[in-house]
C-alpha cells in the first residue's frame, strides 16, 4: 500500500512536468497546425542553456536559469516555425510532410547538441531540499516546487485563454484561421506570439524535465516526446485542458504500473489506455475542435 501511494506521488511529479510540456505542444499545434516533433529537442536545448547559466557561478539559481531557458525556447520555437515550417506550409505541403520536416529538425538539433557538447550527461548544481512524507507520498522540496510551478502555469494559461484578448484571438485562430482573419484578428501576429508563448513553456518544461531527471543528455527527451504526444492525443490535439488531463493520466498510470508489473514495461498500460480511449473517442477526450 505504501509503495502504491508513493508511486501516486511520483506520478504527480511526472504528470506536472509532462503537463507543462504537453500544454505548450497542444496550444502550438492548435495555432500553427504543425505536429512539431522538434519540440522535444527544443526542450533539451533549453535544458542545456539552463545548465550553462547555472554553471556561471555558485550563486546562480536553477530557477533563474530556467527563465533564460524560457527565452531561448521561445526564440528557437519562433525561428523554427517562421523559417522552416511556415515556408513549407505556404507551398502547400501536406501535414504528413510537415511532420517529417519536424522529425528532421528534431534530429538536426539533437545531433548538433551532441556534436557540440559531447555524449556525456550533465546535472544541475542545486539542492533537492528536504524530503517530505505525507499520507504515504514521498516528495522532495524541488518536486513540490515543480508541482506548484505546473499548477501556476495551468491556472495562468486558463486565465490567459479565457479572459484576455490575446487568449481569445488564439482560440479563434486555432478554430478557423481564415474566419479569424476576416473578423479582423491579425492571425500572423497571433501565431508569432503563440510560438513565443509555447516556446517559453517548452523551455521551462525542458528545464523542469532535466531537474526531475537528475542527469540528462542530448537524447534524454526521446521517450518523453512520445509521452507528450500521448498526453496531447489522449486529451484531444489542440486542447490545452485535454493535454492537462492527458498528462495526469499518463504520468500517474505510468508510475503506478511500475508497482504491479515489471518496471521496464511500465509505459505499456498507459498506452493501452490511450488506445482504448482513442477507440471510443477518436479525437480525444476534449474533442471540441478548437482551443479551449
Amino acid at each position, binding site marked *: 500500500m505504501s509503495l502504491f501511494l508513493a508511486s501516486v506521488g511520483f506520478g504527480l511529479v511526472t504528470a506536472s512536468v509532462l503537463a507543462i510540456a504537453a500544454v505548450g505542444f497542444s496550444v502550438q499545434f492548435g495555432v500553427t497546425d504543425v505536429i512539431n516533433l522538434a519540440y522535444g529537442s527544443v526542450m533539451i536545448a533549453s535544458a542545456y542553456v539552463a545548465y550553462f547559466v547555472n554553471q556561471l557561478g555558485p550563486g546562480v539559481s536553477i530557477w533563474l536559469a530556467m527563465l533564460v531557458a524560457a527565452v531561448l525556447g521561445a526564440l528557437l520555437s519562433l525561428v523554427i516555425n517562421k523559417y522552416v515550417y511556415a515556408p513549407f506550409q505556404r507551398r502547400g505541403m501536406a501535414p504528413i510532410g510537415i511532420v517529417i520536416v519536424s522529425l528532421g529538425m528534431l534530429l538536426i538539433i539533437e545531433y548538433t547538441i551532441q556534436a557540440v557538447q559531447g555524449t556525456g550527461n550533465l546535472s544541475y548544481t542545486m539542492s533537492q531540499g528536504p*524530503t517530505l512524507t505525507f499520507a504515504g507520498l514521498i516528495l522532495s522540496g524541488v518536486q513540490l516546487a515543480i508541482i506548484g510551478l505546473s499548477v501556476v502555469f495551468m491556472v495562468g494559461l486558463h486565465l490567459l485563454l479565457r479572459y484576455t484578448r490575446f487568449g481569445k484571438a488564439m482560440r479563434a485562430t486555432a478554430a478557423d484561421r481564415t474566419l479569424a482573419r476576416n473578423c479582423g484578428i491579425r492571425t500572423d501576429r497571433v501565431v508569432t506570439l503563440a510560438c513565443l508563448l509555447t516556446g517559453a513553456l517548452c523551455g521551462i518544461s525542458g528545464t523542469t524535465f532535466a531537474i526531475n531527471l537528475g542527469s540528462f543528455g542530448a537524447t534524454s527527451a526521446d521517450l518523453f516526446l512520445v509521452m507528450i504526444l500521448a498526453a496531447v492525443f489522449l486529451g484531444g490535439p489542440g486542447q490545452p485542458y485535454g493535454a492537462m488531463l492527458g498528462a495526469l493520466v499518463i504520468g500517474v498510470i505510468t508510475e503506478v504500473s511500475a508497482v504491479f508489473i515489471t518496471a521496464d514495461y511500465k509505459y505499456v498500460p498507459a498506452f493501452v489506455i490511450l488506445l482504448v480511449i482513442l477507440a471510443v473517442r477518436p479525437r480525444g477526450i476534449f474533442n471540441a475542435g478548437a482551443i479551449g
Partner: protein
Amino acid sequence: MSGFIRLHSSLRAAAILAVGAILLAACSSTTTSNKITSGAPLVIADLAPFTGVDAALGGFYEASCLAATTAMNKDGGVLGHKMTCATFDTRGDPADAVPATNQMFATEPHLAMVIGCTSDEAASVVPIINSHKMVMFCMTGQSEFDHVHYPYFFRLVPPDLSESYAMVAIAKYIKHYTRIALAFGNDIGSQTFVGPAIQSIKKAGLTLTANVTLDLTANTFRTEAETVVQSHPQVILTEALGSADATFLSEVKQLNGGTMIPVIGTSATISPAWYSSVAGAIGASTLAQNYVADNLVTATSGPEFTPFYDAMQAVKNQVKSLDSGSLATLLSGPGAVHLFDGMNLAALAMIMAKSTNPSVYKNDILKIGDGVKGAVVVHSFAQGKAELAKGKAIRYIGPGGPTSFDSYHDSPGIFQVDGYSPTGQVLVLGGISTADYRAVQ
C-alpha cells in the same frame, strides 16, 4: 478521408524505399578482399555506439585507438603501413549495427582489424565480421562467446557471468553484506549479469531483496528506487549506462532519507561518462564513499603502464570527450586498457607473420599474447617490433596484464576491487581471492 489515403500511399512508398535500402545493404557485404595496397594506411575500425544511450563507449574506444595507432606510427607503422582509425556507429542497437558493419566492409578496403563490438551488438555483428575473416577484439561479456568458436574473435574482458560472481564475492567476502538488490539496465549488455548474479547470490547464501530493471530511455525510476529502498538492501549491484544510473541512484539517495545505499558496479561503470553523470547527480564525495566495482587487474605503474600512459597523454587533446579528469578514469577503464592491448597484439602479430592478412596473422596473436618458450617479454609495440626485428620470439604484456587465451580466444583475467576518488581517479582497493571467487560460482 483523402488525407488518410495520402498517408497510406506515403507510408507504402516509404516502406518500399526502406525495404529496398535494406536489400541493398544486405547485398553489399558478402565478401571482403584482404588485398592491401602496398603502403596504404591500414584501418582499425571502431565499431561501437557513438549515439544512443551507450554513446560514450565509442568515443573512449576511439581514444584508445588513436593512442595505439599514434604510438605505432611514431615507430614506423606496421610492415610499411601507417595505422589509422575509422569509426562506425552501431547506436548500440543490432538493427543499426548490422548495416553499419556492412558499410564498414563496403567502404574500408584496407581494414586491418575491428575493435569495439560491445554487448549491445556483438551477437549480431560478430558472425558477420567472422564471415569476412577479419580479426576483432570485442568488448562484450556475453556468455555465448564462452562456448561458440569464432576463429577471428578475441576477447580480453571477462564474460558477464564471471563479473557477476566477482560482484557477489565482493559483497560477501570483502564488504560482508548479506542483503543485496539488483538494478540493471534493460539493454542486452546489462541484462546478461542478472541471471548469474541471482544464482550466485543463492549459492553464497545471501538474500536477494529486490531485482529491478531500468529502462535506459525512461525519464524517472522513482517507483523502482522506492521498491529497492523498501526492500532494505545493504548494497545495490548495478550497471545502467547513459543517464539511467545517475537518475536512479539520485532517487535512491533521496528516497532513503538522503543517505546513499552502497553500490557495487560492473567494470563498465569504470568509465569517465558513468563517473561524471553519477557524481553530478549524487555528489562526487558520496559516490567515492559508497561505490566499488569489480575490474580486471590492470597496471597503474611500471613498465607495462608507462607506454600506455604516454600514448594516451599524446592524444588527449585530439579526443573531444576527454578532459584531464576523464583521462585519469580512462587509464583504468577496460575499454581503453584492453583494446590498447588488443591492437598492439594484432599489430605485432602482423609483423611476426609478415602479413596484414587476418587469416595469416591471427594465430600469431595467441603466440604473442600467451608467449612461447624462451619468448622475450615486451611491454610496448616499439619494444616488440624491435625484438621481432632481431628474430626473437616475444610475449606482449601491456597495461591489462598477461593474457591467457582459451580455445575460444577468451582471456578472462584476474579481478580486483576498484573505487573512485572524489576527483574521479580510479583507485585500486584490493583483490578478490580465487577461493572467494570460486565459493560463489
